[in-house]
């Protein structure tokens, strides 16, 4: 099976050239998209559907840092084990508990400004983690060590989704 990186003609690495990725994605889509085959026979329409589905999945994976890192690790035979490996550094967990409390307070008091601040804080944390992850994956090639960081990043991604949900709760 071709990797998602191969599909777009990219070197497998955590750091991606987003513009190049987008260009390759659109180039392929413009050839395989179902809109190009709306008047074609069933066989071509089916092949188009399969290809577009695959290209969309690959694009979605490479654009999301957690999914991209997980894919990269899988290519190197490392399983991130989101479900089975829940060990986290103590200081990371303490910090997360603090952030969660802040989220509950902001939701309880219906305070959108507090949610904004929390969102910004988490976004900054994510950028920092991504930088460390790029270092570990692309320079040090420490894949087992990188898996720990991916799990932390996933934690933040979940928290981000909960903040979004909180906006809807208080609206």
């Amino acid at each position, binding site marked *: 099976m071709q990797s998602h990186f191969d599909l777009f003609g990219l070197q497998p690495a955590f750091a991606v050239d987003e513009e190049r990725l987008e260009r390759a994605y659109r180039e392929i889509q413009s050839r*395989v*998209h179902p*809109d190009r085959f709306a008047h*074609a026979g069933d066989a071509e329409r089916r*092949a188009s559907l399969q290809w577009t589905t695959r290209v969309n999945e690959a694009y979605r994976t490479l654009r999301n840092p957690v999914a991209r890192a997980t894919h990269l690790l899988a290519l190197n035979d490392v399983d991130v084990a989101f479900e089975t490996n829940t060990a986290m550094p103590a200081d990371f967990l303490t910090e997360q508990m603090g952030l969660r409390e802040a989220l509950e307070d902001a939701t309880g008091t219906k305070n959108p400004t507090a949610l904004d601040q929390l969102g910004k804080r988490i976004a900054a944390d994510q950028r920092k983690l991504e930088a460390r992850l790029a270092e570990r994956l692309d320079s040090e090639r420490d894949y087992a060590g990188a898996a720990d960081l991916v799990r932390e990043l996933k934690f933040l991604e979940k928290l981000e989704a909960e903040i979004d949900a909180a906006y809807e709760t208080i609206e």
Partner: protein
Amino acid sequence: MALLQISEPGQSPAPHEHRLAVGIDLGTTNSLVATVRSGAATVLADAQGRPLLPSIVRYLSNGKVEVGYAAQARQAEDPNNTIVSVKRFMGRGVKDIDHLQNAPYDFVDAPGMLQIRTAAGVKSPVEVSAEILRVLRERAEASLGGPLSGAVITVPAYFDDAQRQATKDAGRLAGLNVLRLLNEPTAAAIAYGLDNASEGMFAVYDLGGGTFDLSILKLSRGVFEVVATSGDSLLGGDDFDQRVFCWAVEQAKLAPLSPRDMRLLLVKSREAKEHLTAHGEAPITARLSSGEFIDFTLDTEVFCRITQTLVQKTLGPVRKALRDAGLTASQVDGVVMVGGATRMPQIQRAVAEFFKRDPLNNLDPDKVVALGAAMQANVLAGNKPQGEDWLLLDVIPLSLGVETMGGLVEKIIPRNSTIPAARAQEFTTFKDGQTGMSFHVVQGERELVSDCRSLARFELKGIPPMAAGVARVRVTYQVDADGLLSVTAREATTGAEASVTVKPSYGLADADIERMLRDSFSHAKEDVHARALAEARVEGERMLEATRSALAADGALLAAEERRTVDAAMAELAAKLATSDHRAIKQALDRVNHATADFAARRMDEGVRRALAGRQIGAL
């Protein structure tokens, strides 16, 4: 080496005849049909020169059906048999409908989708919508002078799977080849984007008669990419009429109204609302069947006050879509207003205030969706050469999931995923020796199954008995380019595979559609056989043409033996096209499809390879 000319996949190397294709805006209040003629999209008017068709269908006891203005004229007189705003009922059960008590219909609670008892029998919303589509098809065929090759029908972006499937079924029932279901705000964006050659981030605020959509699109170099979409499929201009109606009932302290009076007062409420767009006050006068005379004046201030919560209600989805897109209001480069209800000044003001910029209104909000749909239909029919067309990337509006233990939802495809999309998830057995698993497919954002929309339930049987937790059942969700879902489940541990594919339960089976089509043709006095033959011929010719151009471009991908099989199948189809046996044509068509399946897949792989090769050379 000789240089071979290679055409784009799916494009014919030879100039071919222009295919007749239309875009249809199947609206809650009005419907329209548009087409591209001599390069420009235009709305097709009826024989009296009227572009809009009121989305109103009246069933008479003699089996006759009135659609549009004729039905509208009789709605107060015959409210129980005159169906207005049927779009609100598409893919919906009785329990889903607000203001049910205010609708003068005799509802029948049917599994999956409600039905309405009329003088001409029990009708499903799909059949009612098909009547509207049929009138538009006939209008287009009369105006364009021939049978249509295909149609694009628009749906609210926030329509769920049930509502989309119902719309597609209505199209087929109306005798249309539905090329695509297109989201209304996306259609509007095409019309605006191409009209103004716009680039950047755009928000489309689409408040129709019964639905509200907010889509955020990124427009750049011939690509329309939907980044996020949100909305409310039960919020629209009708609700503003409803507020005026309730206000009037309260003012006059009216006793519960008869269906006829209810319809009359609703019509007056709507007229007052429309009058207020350009005036400071509007009269509401009506003589009820009791003899009671109503005479009020509604002014702008009261109207704004009683509808304020509705205006505010639209801003929730606006904020949600912006969050999903990761944008702030100020990062939006333009706001496009779509739908007749956006004519209300309080809507314009609220949107301008929210985005801190004047919204764009330069295209007719009633027509812009149909125009965009016509442009897309023209592309899908293959009438535009490569390079002059565009790429449209749309998303699903609501997450698709499956019920897990404890009535919780496991999301499989998240909302705002670009379509087509497919995702798989593995499940295992709960008990030793378990040989069956039942699945419940749901759509929505909430964690509890009871808060989401139930799409389908199905069972996978024939799992070989194993210890609990050993079986591996892989459930795959596939969403196609129309945003429609199909689900497959397969147990693969033992190699003894069991597989099932479901279409959600409200979808009509092909046999139902065929039966309904036959029934409707016997009413419409059209010859069902002649129509089937004409359609099979068009499809057969299209297939031959597409295969010929594919062979001309990529024939080298076939081995000599494979080529002979394809040629033989094509020769047979060509021979059958000369007969008047539409079933034989269909069978020959299927054989060509079958014979070219591998070829099609190889051409697609080749296309991708070339795309990348071209890009890498370009990047050097």
